[in-house]
């Protein structure tokens, strides 16, 4: 019975799978120094940036694609991907943004027109390889906050970019990070000055539109001493038969007493019921709590992508710094997710919390992989991890791989894990209380995820719930 309800729900089409017809500028598929020169020239980058890209490419060419996870997929042909696609006309103001693109964002529920925008949320919209529109930039500037595309930051704020880019995720960190370092096309840059509390939610919306392209965005967020920022990202892509690669890098730097809250709602196209198409989401996200009492909190809701491979991590370097990871990952149909976090405790009395909720339905495979590492000097370090799995039906899988390494005897590490299943008996009980099967599944799934949803900013929590409804339950709205 539970399975039937879920299958009915899952028969729903991916709702954001439309394509937008825009004239685009794109580079021929393939990866070479010439392509990097093309991207760099398109973006009017200074020579130092091009030099870094070339250096990264050279490192990448010497590296091997990793295959240690539980994931199964066809080999990726990196020479068949186009590394740059952009709407032809570079817009200078909202009036110049291609109407079709504005319409695409409207369909996604993200109006870029400032008149219509949700009060209090500044948006950067990245369409294929370029940022098409950043809102509220001026209002934020008054407080000294920089919120712009990374391309703009490279030109306008080269000192900040040179100091911090590659400082948390070095270009040779891993295969996909090296690829990104070479070819990244856009992304968001945020700088919050000392003692400033960012007055609104900042958010970026990523959209892959063009065919046979990868999206390689790079985000860099710096929270200077005593500052606070809450940043959100959302993602979606058209429905296509071939797989598309998304290899992003996110770096966060929190100085003394600063706090960064980073929330993601990932809804890339997951592929069809036969596992055909969909996005390969291979992402490196890492933050460093550089100073004392710094705090970084990752919250993610992963509903899309054919394959997700990501481990948002925290390096807790400052004494008393805090790292948090709250995750909901849902896999259904042929989706695979291998996600988790790394908490690296370097400073004294550093604390970390991990709450991971994995939901698997149909043939979905969900793995949690987490590392908690306590260095010799991290006396008094504490970690609490909770990994819960919810299974719907009998053809899906959930796997948990906790790695714990402690080199300090005063550290306290706790790990709890549970696996549960939505039973027919539970759904029957709810039906006897007037609640139909679909609503019953929804209620149980939401109940299972609520600790994570509670961490999301309000508007995002609403979106996350609706997404779960689309992925697992009946139609909403």
């Amino acid at each position, binding site marked *: 019975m539970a399975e039937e309800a879920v299958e009915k729900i899952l028969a729903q089409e991916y709702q954001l799978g439309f394509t937008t017809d825009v004239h685009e500028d794109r580079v021929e598929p393939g990866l070479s120094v010439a392509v990097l020169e093309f991207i760099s020239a398109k973006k009017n980058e200074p020579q130092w940036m091009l030099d870094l890209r070339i250096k990264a490419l050279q490192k990448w060419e010497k590296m091997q694609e990793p295959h240690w996870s539980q994931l199964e997929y066809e080999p990726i042909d990196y020479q068949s991907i186009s590394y740059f696609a952009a709407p032809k006309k570079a817009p200078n103001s909202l009036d110049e943004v291609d109407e079709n693109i504005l319409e695409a964002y409207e369909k996604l529920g993200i109006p870029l027109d400032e008149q219509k925008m949700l009060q209090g949320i500044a948006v950067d919209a990245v369409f294929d390889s370029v940022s098409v529109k950043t809102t509220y930039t001026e209002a934020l500037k008054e407080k000294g906050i920089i919120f712009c595309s990374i391309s703009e930051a490279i030109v306008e704020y080269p000192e900040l970019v040179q100091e911090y880019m590659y400082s948390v995720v070095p270009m040779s960190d891993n295969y996909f990070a090296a690829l990104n370092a070479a070819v990244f096309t856009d992304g968001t840059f945020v700088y919050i000055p000392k003692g400033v509390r960012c007055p609104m939610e900042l958010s970026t919306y990523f959209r892959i539109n063009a065919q046979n392209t990868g999206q390689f965005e790079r985000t860099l967020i710096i929270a200077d001493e005593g500052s606070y920022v809450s940043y959100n990202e959302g993602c979606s892509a058209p429905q296509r038969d071939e797989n598309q690669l998304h290899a992003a890098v996110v770096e966060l730097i929190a100085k003394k007493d600063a706090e960064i809250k980073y929330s993601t709602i990932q809804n890339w196209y997951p592929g069809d019921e036969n596992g055909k198409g969909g996005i390969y989401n291979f992402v490196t996200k890492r933050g460093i709590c550089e100073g004392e009492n710094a705090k970084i909190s990752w919250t993610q809701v992963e509903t899309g992508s054919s394959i997700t491979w990501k481990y948002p991590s925290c390096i807790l370097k400052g004494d008393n710094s805090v790292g948090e990871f709250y995750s909901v990952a849902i896999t259904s149909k042929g989706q695979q997710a291998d996600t988790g976090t790394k908490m690296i405790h370097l400073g004294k009395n550093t604390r970390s919390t991990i709450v991971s909720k994995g939901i698997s339905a149909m043939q979905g495979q969900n793995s949690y992989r987490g590392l908690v590492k306590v260095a010799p000097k991290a006396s008094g370090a504490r970690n609490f991890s909770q990994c819960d799995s919810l299974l719907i039906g009998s053809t899906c899988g959930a796997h948990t791989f906790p790695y714990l390494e402690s080199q300090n005897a005063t550290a306290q590490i706790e790990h709890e894990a549970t696996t549960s299943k939505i039973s027919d008996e539970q759904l029957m*009980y709810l039906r006897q*209380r007037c609640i*139909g099967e679909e609503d019953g599944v929804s209620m149980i799934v939401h*109940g299972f995820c609520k600790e994570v949803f509670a961490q999301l900013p309000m508007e995002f929590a609403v979106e996350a719930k609706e997404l779960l409804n689309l992925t697992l339950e009946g139609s909403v709205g």
Partner: protein
Amino acid sequence: MMQIKNLHAKIGEKEILKGVNLALEKGKVHVLMGTNGSGKSTLTKAIVGHYDVSVTAGTIEYKGKNLVDMPAEERALEGVFLSFQNPIEIPGVNNAYFLRAALNAKEKYRGEKETNAAEFLKLMRAHAQKLGMNPDMISRGLNDGFSGGEKKRNEILQMEILQPDMILLDEIDSGLDIDALKAVSQGINRMKDGERTFLVITHYKRILDYIHPDYVHIFQDGQVIKNGGPELVDVLESEGYQAIVKD
């Protein structure tokens, strides 16, 4: 209120109900007694549309409709309520959230205004207090870690809030201490309004001293074998089922 006619039903391949005939009169309290394994719980499951039970013949007439082909949630929306013998636990689903969703579903079905969260909490607290329930159970997971007695009180709480018309109570009194039995019985008595109909399954006379049944039916091997008044209970208590089965 409900007419069960020649009802046959199977669980898996095994025939459990073998031609049940039972007339439940509007506004009355009916008691169903019978030996373990005689099929009493299967009868309640057949009435609410539990997936375990497949009806092979017969009808369950209720409000002018045959329930047999109706989805389970629709039967509930039409006012059929079952207090389960072993209420299942649903961790993570908040008790109040669940019950408000149930009430709102019913209100929506009947075209009534949906009770909002604030009104609902007030309502739920008042009922919980009457039943002597710990206030913190309102925000706990549905039946999650509840004791046997707490689960039964929670079933009665749901009944009082959902205000059903046809109430099936499957061993609501089993495993209750004296205080809990009293609280549960008072809850049942509060629901008696001369309109609602009750079918109470029990093994013990104790609860009947509180709720005063109008009719008693004896169930044996998948059939109702005897109908009578409260006096039947005394015969059972003194002579056991054998005396009635022999009749």
